[in-house]
């Protein structure tokens, strides 16, 4: 029986098991640590549209709560006192960020999957315009004069500057990699951008990210604040006086062998403070020695600078920091303490459990209430900031049952399965994608086999998995391997593993931005395709099967799913030179390349790492032709 058939049978068996358990009402809430009422979970594999609240904002007058619902692709407008729904406004595909115009008359929403901004009239509560942006717009802010909009484009790594009256794009500013979150400084003079992927750096060096600083009036980048060691940064907030900024970030330990999770062995969860109050950047750990604030995302500084609130999507909590105590601690430790997990005891006031995968947070004007969007259970937590307690949980309209797919997604994002709750799948697969890093995993041997972390979109039916193809299917990849080598803790039960596998299998590739509308190809892409598919080189010689691009990277996803003995890329650190031909799905987005992440660009695969021509016949190509090949690959 082929591996593929074995896998299909296993999946079918798991589905049958699910059906039985669901009908009999015996389902435990897998991984949630509590029993679930029969009927709360529906053992369904089909996709159900959950609200999935990602971000939350208060209207400028504080009377309304706006909730960005990524799953149902709408903006919910709620009464901020009684949380009654005022309106549900449909927007574009996969909304990701939103903000108000300076006068509050407009709400701008980025639609990440269709590269647009929806403009909502906040009086009419309807979309009045839709404007084009760069690729995968993730947040938007208007400059105080109201003449320009700035949009962070995650996969074009830039910031679109739009005319706020017409939506016409005026220019693009070069940002860092994965530009995603924009924040206007309180005085309106600067816009700060953070990035979910690390900037390119030298091979096997610490990741580097940046805060891109834009002069709002001139619409030019004026500074780039380095974030050393930070691979993924998310929201920023400022104190009202503008003298202190804070951004959340993941600090991975990808340069050392991932051999344990104790003492922050895989990640540190941090905020980085910057601004005039400090005169420098200071990375502040949120974790404790045996407890973590995994996947920090949202951040809010209290109006009186007494507290900082941080949501942690993986740990499902909000961390409350005593800001004066933190500033005092910083002053007493001028050498930094980013790696000291005992430090947080000196400034963390409490950690408040909230819903599943808490993301966006916002404070009321007076700082008395903190609203938290819990993306994976369709709720808002309302926290009384004096009592530091959730005083209300607002359930958003939507399906009440938790489908198998939804449960799989919850499992993917939570950190509760790993030792001491340090990491979840989403730590390395940011928003279910990739992380742009190479890791060294302990089972291959200390210092052996550093591997590039691959994109997981579209990995369904591309088994076997791992670069060495040693995992025959997704359940093996996500189950025993992950549990043993990553979580080093609790094992998934069968249902949870099946649901997690279902979720991973459901991750379809995002739209390819290099393909022209209507799937036409540019002349360069067409020429590149011919090179990809060629069987004869430019001298008229037959190219050996194993040295044709299309032989190893065949099929719709660009993989033959076969292992190949030697493509000339192995190094003395590798245990084997036998590697699986990886899929080419959205390959343009996922640098670095090759099994060990040594190629920083697609070009380098052939200009540097193919000297023996074992990774395709390319030495006969001119530079023009290699460029054509790259242009074609970008369409995959």
């Amino acid at each position, binding site marked *: 029986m082929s591996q593929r058939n074995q896998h299909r049978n296993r999946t079918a068996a798991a589905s049958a098991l699910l059906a039985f358990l669901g009908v009999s009402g015996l389902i435990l809430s897998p991984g949630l640590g509590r029993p679930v009422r029969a009927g709360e979970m529906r053992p369904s594999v089909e996709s159900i549209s959950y609200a999935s609240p990602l971000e939350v904002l208060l209207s400028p007058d504080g009377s309304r709560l706006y909730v960005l619902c990524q799953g149902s692709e709408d903006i919910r407008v709620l009464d901020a006192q009684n949380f009654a729904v005022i309106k549900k406004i449909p927007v574009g595909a996969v909304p990701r960020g939103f903000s108000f115009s300076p006068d509050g008359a407009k709400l701008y929403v980025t639609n990440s999957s269709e590269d647009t901004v929806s403009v909502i009239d906040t009086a009419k509560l309807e979309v009045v315009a839709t404007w084009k942006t*760069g690729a995968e717009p993730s947040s938007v802010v208007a400059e105080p004069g109201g003449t320009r909009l700035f949009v962070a484009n995650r996969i*074009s790594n830039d910031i679109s500057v739009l005319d706020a009256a017409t939506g016409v794009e005026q*220019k*693009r*500013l*070069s940002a860092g990699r994965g530009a995603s979150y924009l924040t206007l400084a309180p005085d309106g003079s600067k816009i700060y951008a953070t990035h979910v992927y690390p*900037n390119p750096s030298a091979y096997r060096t610490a990741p580097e990210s*940046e805060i*891109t*600083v834009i002069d709002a009036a*001139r619409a*030019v*980048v*004026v*500074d*780039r604040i380095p974030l050393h060691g930070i691979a993924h940064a998310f929201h920023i907030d400022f104190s009202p006086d503008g003298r202190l900024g804070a951004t959340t970030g993941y600090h991975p330990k990808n340069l050392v062998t991932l051999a344990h999770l104790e003492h922050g062995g895989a990640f540190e969860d941090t905020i980085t403070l910057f601004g005039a109050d400090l005169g420098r950047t200071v990375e502040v750990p949120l974790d404790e020695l045996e407890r973590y604030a995994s996947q920090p995302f949202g951040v809010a500084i209290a109006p009186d600078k007494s507290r900082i609130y941080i949501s942690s999507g993986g740990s499902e909590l909000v961390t409350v920091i005593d800001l004066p105590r933190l500033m005092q601690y910083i002053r007493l430790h001028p050498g930094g303490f980013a790696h000291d997990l005992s430090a947080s005891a000196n400034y963390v006031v409490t950690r408040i459990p909230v819903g599943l995968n808490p993301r966006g947070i916002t404070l009321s004007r007076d700082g008395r209430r903190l609203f938290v969007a819990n993306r994976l259970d369709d709720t808002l937590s309302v926290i009384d900031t004096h009592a530091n307690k959730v005083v209300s949980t607002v359930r958003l309209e939507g399906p009440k049952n938790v489908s198998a797919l939804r449960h799989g997604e919850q499992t993917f994002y939570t950190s509760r399965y790993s030792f001491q709750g340090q990491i979840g799948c989403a730590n390395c697969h940011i928003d279910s994608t990739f992380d742009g890093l190479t890791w060294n995993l302990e089972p291959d041997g200390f210092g052996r086999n550093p591997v590039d972390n691959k994109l997981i979109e579209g990995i369904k039916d591309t088994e076997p998995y791992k670069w060495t193809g040693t995992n025959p299917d997704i359940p093996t990849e996500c189950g025993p391997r992950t549990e043993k080598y990553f979580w080093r803790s609790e094992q998934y039960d069968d249902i949870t593993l099946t649901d997690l596998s279902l979720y991973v299998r459901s991750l379809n590739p995002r739209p390819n931005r*290099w393909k022209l509308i209507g799937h036409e190809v*540019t002349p*360069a892409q067409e020429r590149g395709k011919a090179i990809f598919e060629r069987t004869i080189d430019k001298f008229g010689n037959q190219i050996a099967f194993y040295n044709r691009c299309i032989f190893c990277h065949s099929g719709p996803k660009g993989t033959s799913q076969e292992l190949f003995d030697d493509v000339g890329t192995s190094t003395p650190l590798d245990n084997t030179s036998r590697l699986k031909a990886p899929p080419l799905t959205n390959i343009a987005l996922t640098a670095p390349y090759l099994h060990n992440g040594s190629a*920083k*660009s697609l*070009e*380098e695969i052939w*200009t*540097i790492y193919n000297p023996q021509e074992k990774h395709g016949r390319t030495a006969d190509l*001119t*530079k*023009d032709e290699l*460029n054509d090949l*790259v*242009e074609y690959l970008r369409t995959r």
Partner: protein
Amino acid sequence: MKTKHQLAVICTMAISLAMSLAAQAPQMPKFRFENFTTANGLPNNHVFAVLVDGPRVWAATEDGLAVYENHAWKTYTTKDGLAHRAVLSLALDKNTGDLWAGTMAGLSRISAGRIDTFTQLNSGLSNDVVYGVSVEGENVWVATAAGGCRLNLRTGVWTLYNERNTPMNEIWAYAVAATPTKVYYAIWGSGLLEYDQKTGRWDKYDDPDGENEMVLFKDQGLIHEIVTSVSYVDNIVWAATYFGDSRYDGRYWHNFLTKDSGLPSNFTNTVKGVDGTHAWFGTDKGLAYYDGANWAVYRPSLQDGKPEMTVRDAEGRVTTIAVTSAPAHNYVLGIDFDGDDIWVATAKGLSHGIRQRP
């Protein structure tokens, strides 16, 4: 023997005559040159290009990219991510404020202190030796030792221009000037290439006399095939070659040679048009200015190295103007303007010409 009185009269007459001639000379811009070398902060005296960027001045030197701001020099090197220590060309993206630097080993973008480097190995750049760069809209146009290329900043797509898809007989591209309507490439040994932004078509201008140094008919066409620099302003092409310079208005050519103009040397490294009438030329024998009729030359004297300014009027009369300073060296490689001031990159330092008013 002449008496003291007679000598005084003669001197007075001579001075009066000189003053009279000077008074008759056309009024050409006069400068006080402040020179920068390694002695006062420049990382290297070989300066290949200069670019004025608001309050900053960028100098492309053989040993790094130097920036002068607030009366102090700072140098970016390969340690900061610069593609190579020898920087050959500069261009400013006026939309974004990013600076592009062509080097001997790749193209670098300097954006608010971050340097991104593109090479022939890690990107679609046609060749690592980047002689020229120019930014227009969302495209960066590059002149390299293996033809030209264009990076679209929005799509990330590189398009290469060489002998396979343009009339470029040689692929040694020395300079590029990109504007919204036309893009011009100065090709070493292959004349001047013109790209029409609207139609996407290429055109080519060659020396009608072929690849030799003869000029059979003046103003018949481009002065020579070895084109080193090009500037396109107000629909006028200014082209520099190693054998004279040319001005082209789309219909007529006008050529400049030392024998029939105020050009100090036919060996011209760079040309920069102020507008359709006025232009500056950087030669191996000094800096020259042409106002449409008259010429001025600024240089250390070829005889004694003392500061020198000469003016040649439309009739060919040459007048020496008394000056106290001159550009750092006669071998001029780059020119840029800062209002009425001028910055000059030379083989032995960078010069700031501060305009002097009568």
